[in-house]
């Protein structure tokens, strides 16, 4: 990793970017060396592709209750591979379409919660003093609060729809990210180059933007992947409880219909297994990728696996 002879001609910015590119390449290499993580990544990419391409490769008419062609609750056969639901719609088609909203809500809620968590975490570590004390108390408060009850309360007062779910998950799931980011920021800010940067006149914006943020970014990335899994389960739970948009197709709503419209009492297991297994699989993919990233990027875990 010694600098090439041409380094003298490069600007500091170019050097920084070259090092970052090399770092990313190294990370990818270490990540791809873990079979489970790589498998999770490939399957996740395939799932996202399927979700994006659904309008092209399948017919959304099958989702419409009035255009359903099958008999209610018929078991799996040659025509409907996973059987039909109470309205005679194909469970396979519904499950595939459920991927779209689950992924969308999962990603959007995660972005929101990681954003809140990162800002509060960095602020709590960077500013110190009473700001830090208040932010920490605030974080601990939200950490112990029963998040599902808070999310239910929030979604009861907001208009029904997927963005309400995103908001409800986003504002309840951030405290663990905030704690993680705070710890990492404290570690980074105790290093001598931060002191040097301050001595040279670097302000808050400079220190946080140029040094702290690039330092916490890898850890935040690994954490984000793990948070998506939790957000997808939270989304399924909330839509199962009937919080979401009643017209959209989600895995949680499919399971709610199965319970309330008699599929469960009639033992129609083909209405239960597909959406549930879909949730478990997608969460598993995210967990595999997240664990893999964490192993590579978290300095605390690194020694244990090499």
């Amino acid at each position, binding site marked *: 990793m010694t600098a090439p002879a041409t380094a003298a001609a490069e600007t500091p910015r170019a050097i920084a970017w070259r090092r970052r590119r090399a770092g990313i390449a190294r990370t990818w290499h270490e990540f791809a060396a873990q079979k489970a993580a790589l498998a999770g990544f490939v399957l996740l990419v395939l799932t996202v592709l399927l979700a994006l391409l659904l309008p092209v490769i399948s017919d959304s008419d099958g989702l419409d209750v009035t255009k359903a062609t099958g008999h209610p609750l018929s078991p799996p056969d040659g025509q409907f591979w996973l059987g039909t639901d109470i309205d005679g719609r194909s469970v396979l088609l519904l499950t595939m379409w459920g991927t779209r909203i689950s992924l969308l809500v999962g990603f959007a809620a995660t972005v929101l919660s990681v954003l809140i968590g990162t800002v509060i975490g960095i602020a709590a570590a960077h500013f110190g003093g009473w700001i830090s004390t208040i932010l920490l108390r605030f974080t601990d408060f939200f950490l112990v609060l029963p998040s599902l*009850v808070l999310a239910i309360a929030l979604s009861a007062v907001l208009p029904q729809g997927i963005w309400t779910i995103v908001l409800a998950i986003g504002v309840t799931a951030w405290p663990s990210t905030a704690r993680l980011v705070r710890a990492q920021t404290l570690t980074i800010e105790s290093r001598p180059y931060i002191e040097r940067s301050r001595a040279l006149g670097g302000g808050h914006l400079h220190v946080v933007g140029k040094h702290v943020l690039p330092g916490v970014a890898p850890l935040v990335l690994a954490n984000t992947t793990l948070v998506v899994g939790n957000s997808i389960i939270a989304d399924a739970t909330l839509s199962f409880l009937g919080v979401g948009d009643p017209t959209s197709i989600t895995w949680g709503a499919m399971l709610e219909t199965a319970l309330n419209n008699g599929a469960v009492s009639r033992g129609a297991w083909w209405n239960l297994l597909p959406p549930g297994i879909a949730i478990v699989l997608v969460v598993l993919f995210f967990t595999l990728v997240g664990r893999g990233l964490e192993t590579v990027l978290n300095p605390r875990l690194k020694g244990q696996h090499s």
Partner: protein
Amino acid sequence: MTQALTSDQAAVLVDPDENRGGTGTTRFVLTKIAEALASILLVIVLGFLLFRLLPGDPVAFMVRERPTDPAQIAELRDRLGIDKPLLTQFWDYFTGLFRGDFGTSYIERRPVLDMIGERLWPTVLLVGSATVLAVALGLWLGIRAAWKRDSFFDRAQTGIALTLWSVPQFWLGLLLLVVTGGLFPSRGMHSPDAGPGFFAQGLDVLHHLVLPCVTLLAVFYAQYMLVMRSSLLGEMNADYLTTARAKGLRDDLVRRRHAVPNALLPTVTLVFMQFGMVVSGAVTVEAVFSWPGLGQLTYDALHGPDLPVLQGVFVVLASAVVLMNLLAELLYRVLDPRVRTA
């Protein structure tokens, strides 16, 4: 996964900032109680703001689909105190809580506190029995898994626990309903045809309890098991175990008398720490099995929507979680002499 799980746990249990203040136990206890009280105050403020500031006029909620004249609406507005300044409203709400006035349900038109009171015991029964069983099962499996580290038993148990841990609870409940196929009652807590008398009634409730309790148990025991396992693994190479073995103690005596008591500490406090998760689990599982507890009350209130009930349940459950965490912190101090003298 186990490593991350326990390090998170440890981070919560042993706060590095804890030694800021004095070292006296009294001071520690008072600080913790003051912090818990501040948290409960914050819960009340949050509960108040959540249902007042957000969009939606409560009066419009209450009178929708019912013929009402303007005079009735005005009377309602006056009774709810909606036209007063926000701070006055908060003060009325706050002092009301201390008089046991949690508001009146929009739908059932009864005091919210009464509704919460009659739903409390079914939830305590469900959550209590599931927790006791989860602790017993989790500790038993965790101890055995750690003692035979990396054996087939260890790897199989850890795998099963992690899988159950990541499955959505309500889905597990639905699967149990279909798999048992009518062997156990699927709804409620009593059946109308149960005979009179204490014994028959008790059996009937137990019969109804089986499925919701097993569902909660399946999800809860995993964490006890994993924490107990890694906590015991941490003790495994300790010198005092070598000494105990050198004295000639049999293997299971070494385990029972020396290793387990020392490893038990994190799991004991976990019972209280877990409470927030237990509450969330109860809400979903009660919704699946129509168990007439606080979770079912929340579910019904959400569909009303019955905002005063939701507000009351939120304040009660969140305060309970804060109190449980306070207990966990105090208990940890009592049980661990290292923390006490630090």
